[in-house]
């Protein structure tokens, strides 16, 4: 088992300073009162229709993600240091993606094995030599961070493709504001609700070179059957932009338009929440009915910006992840402020041997996996599960990486037995346009099962509001 985890609050009688007010509140609140609040929160979520779909399970197709009413608190100075590291990392990631579709200097300097990039399913040859506005490829990056001690944050993975979950960050705060206005005021928490404004501003700042006048932005969704549809409609609504589906867009003479009741209206920036493969049937998957035929040509012609850029997912690969600290040094000439989790690449002989020998203490992940699927948490797995995974590793070693099982920090969480520590992670959202900006905080995910380290909502995880304190 991993060593004892760092608890972000600490013991009730001698808690860490940022938690003082939350501790007092916890001490003064009975489990019954807490349960009432939890129910109220759930009622608000269900009424607003904040649901998500879990693809692989039966049952209710519109399910709620469990919400924990106890906030996670991060000190202002801690956040400021973390956010500097995040901005640095995302800047390097953007430089890397731009390089991979341009001169490929990182490859030529021998800093990364070429096949890791070129054979990576996230790499799109169609993007090579295409110039994008402001050289930005990932406009919204979700960087998953875990904490293991008061001053050690590790990056667990980078999501440069189309990270989701930001609507939970916003709605969680909204619910907390309604349920605990006094506590929020007492704690002096930095606000997050301006995120949609920042996002719109970011998207407008990357208007394509042929855009004249005020850029028109639209959010492209796969439609209401998608698990994140609520988030798409929520963000479009908050930004006051059109929520479009593939059929609403049309490309004529290399210009993208929306079909409106007033006729065709030019669109300059498409914030797309559909996958690369479905974006343009004339360029990628021909059987896609979700996309817009010809939009890649309009993109290439400088008439529309697609955000995030197609092919931005090249850096999401977990084997490529291991090179990000080096990207920071290579592109920015700086030492990385944020650490990576030490990682063994099973594609390499020593890596594979180490992983197989230490399976009982490692976390093994599919390089292209996400959502907590296709991973093994060694210490929590049965002998049979480990044997089965070892076979998979031997069969396809370059499909996996292995990491030590980190002692993820815990936060007080309200569960059936009362208030108890549960493991958490954090996904801050980094916005990149003409400048890099973050709202303080992000989405805290919590593993609700005792001892569990898997925080994904598809695997029984919940969320908490994240309070970054002023000062």
């Amino acid at each position, binding site marked *: 088992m991993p060593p004892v985890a760092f608890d972000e609050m600490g013991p009730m009688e001698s808690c860490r300073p940022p938690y003082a007010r939350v501790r007092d509140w916890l001490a003064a609140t009975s489990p019954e009162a807490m349960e009432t609040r939890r129910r109220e929160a759930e009622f608000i979520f269900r009424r607003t*229709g904040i649901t998500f779909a879990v693809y692989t399970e039966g049952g209710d197709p519109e399910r709620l993600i469990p919400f924990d009413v106890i906030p996670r608190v991060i000190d202002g100075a801690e956040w400021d240091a973390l956010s500097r590291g995040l901005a640095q990392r995302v800047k390097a990631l953007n430089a890397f993606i731009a390089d991979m579709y341009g001169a490929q200097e990182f490859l030529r300097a021998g800093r990364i094995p070429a096949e890791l990039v070129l054979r990576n399913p996230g790499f799109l040859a169609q993007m090579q030599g295409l110039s994008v506005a402001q050289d930005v490829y990932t406009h919204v990056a979700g960087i998953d961070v875990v904490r293991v001690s008061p001053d050690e944050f590790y990056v667990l993975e980078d999501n440069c493709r189309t990270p989701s979950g930001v609507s939970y960050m916003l709605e969680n705060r909204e619910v907390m504001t309604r349920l605990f206005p006094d506590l929020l005021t007492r704690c002096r928490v930095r606000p997050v609700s301006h995120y949609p404004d920042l996002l719109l501003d970011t998207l407008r700042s990357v208007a394509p070179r042929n855009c004249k006048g005020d850029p028109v932005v639209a959010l492209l969704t796969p*439609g*209401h059957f998608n698990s994140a549809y609520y988030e798409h409609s929520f963000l479009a609504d908050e930004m006051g932009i059109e929520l479009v589906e593939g059929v609403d867009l049309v490309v004529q003479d290399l210009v993208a338009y929306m*079909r*409106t*009741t*007033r006729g065709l209206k030019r669109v300059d920036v498409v914030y797309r929440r559909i996958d690369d493969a479905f974006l343009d049937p004339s360029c990628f998957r021909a059987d896609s009915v979700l996309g817009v035929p010809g939009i890649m040509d309009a993109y290439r012609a400088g008439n529309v910006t697609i955000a995030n850029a197609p092919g931005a997912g090249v850096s999401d690969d977990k084997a490529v992840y291991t090179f990000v600290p080096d990207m920071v040094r290579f592109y920015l000439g700086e030492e990385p402020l944020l650490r990576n989790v030490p990682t063994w690449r099973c594609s390499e002989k020593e890596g594979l041997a180490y992983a197989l020998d230490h399976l009982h203490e490692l976390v093994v992940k599919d390089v292209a996996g996400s959502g907590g699927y296709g991973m093994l948490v060694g210490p929590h797995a049965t002998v049979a599960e480990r044997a089965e995974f070892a076979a998979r590793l031997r069969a396809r070693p370059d499909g996996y990486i292995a990491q030590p099982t980190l002692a993820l920090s815990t936060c007080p969480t309200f569960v059936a037995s009362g208030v108890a520590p549960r493991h958490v992670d954090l996904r801050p959202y980094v916005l990149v346009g003409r400048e890099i900006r973050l709202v303080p905080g992000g989405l805290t995910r919590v593993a609700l099962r005792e001892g569990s380290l898997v925080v994904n909502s598809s695997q029984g995880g919940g969320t908490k509001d994240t309070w970054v304190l002023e000062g």
Partner: protein
Amino acid sequence: MLSRTADNLFWLARYIERSENVARLLDVGLRMASLSQEAGGDAMEWRSTILAAGCEQSFAATGREPTAQAVIDHLTRDPANPSSILACLEMARRNARADRTGITTDMWEAVNSAWLEARQLRDEDFAVGNVRRLLEWVKERSLRFGGAAMGTMLRNDAYWFTRLGMAIERADSTARILDVKYHVLLPRESGVGGTRYYYQWTSILRSVSAQRAYHWVYRDRLKPWLVADLLILRPEMPRSLVACYDDLARYLEALAGAYGTRGECHRLIGQMHARLRYGRIEDVFRQGLHEYLTEFIEQNSVLGSEISRHYLS
């Protein structure tokens, strides 16, 4: 506004309106079936319900005799009938969900709760003896939706498209109800046709919630041509053809004003509206009530397509 959004609103309103119309038709069918033969109750009654709902083809495909239960099943829940009440609620919810941000919370809740409740229905709720409760419920849900739309929507294009959908569906329904019974509405020498006809006329009025309205408007006993007059030409009667066309003309004009463009749908509405507004019931009967209504249903459907062509695609 996106054409698809406008299309969703237009069809959302149409499907809700259609579910209510089907419920009204079935309600009248049940009422007529409970009357004695002498008072007009006969097996043909259920056949005319199917006709009035415009479902003769889909019903014929079921191969069933037009018994009460067969017609109720087909019009409330037959999956093969796209105009069944359950199908309408499903389609309405689909359109509402695809346009979650374009409609108000109250409208969404009206549609969503109707859909959720429909999923709880059991077989016995559709039995001849129980179905009245279900029909009442459908009417209530539709009225709640209409109320939510009227009470909470901004008066802009979104509202206008919603009202257009409602009006065009309603005009179609009223015209069909009249057409199915046109033969009992033709003026006769005697002016009254005995008990049998009396109940037939009442049933027409009931199906559009107008039996009280008739007396308020005419202060007269039931006369068949006045029933036709009320449902075709009286602007104060909310389900009359002219009232629906007052709405259609008003909201198409609002759209033309706001967008600064006109098309075939605007020419057509002008022509059809003038004909209803300045028409006389004598002339309708001179042309032939059935011929008049058939032509109207046809043109109303053309108008629907023209609105789609101009704004929704």
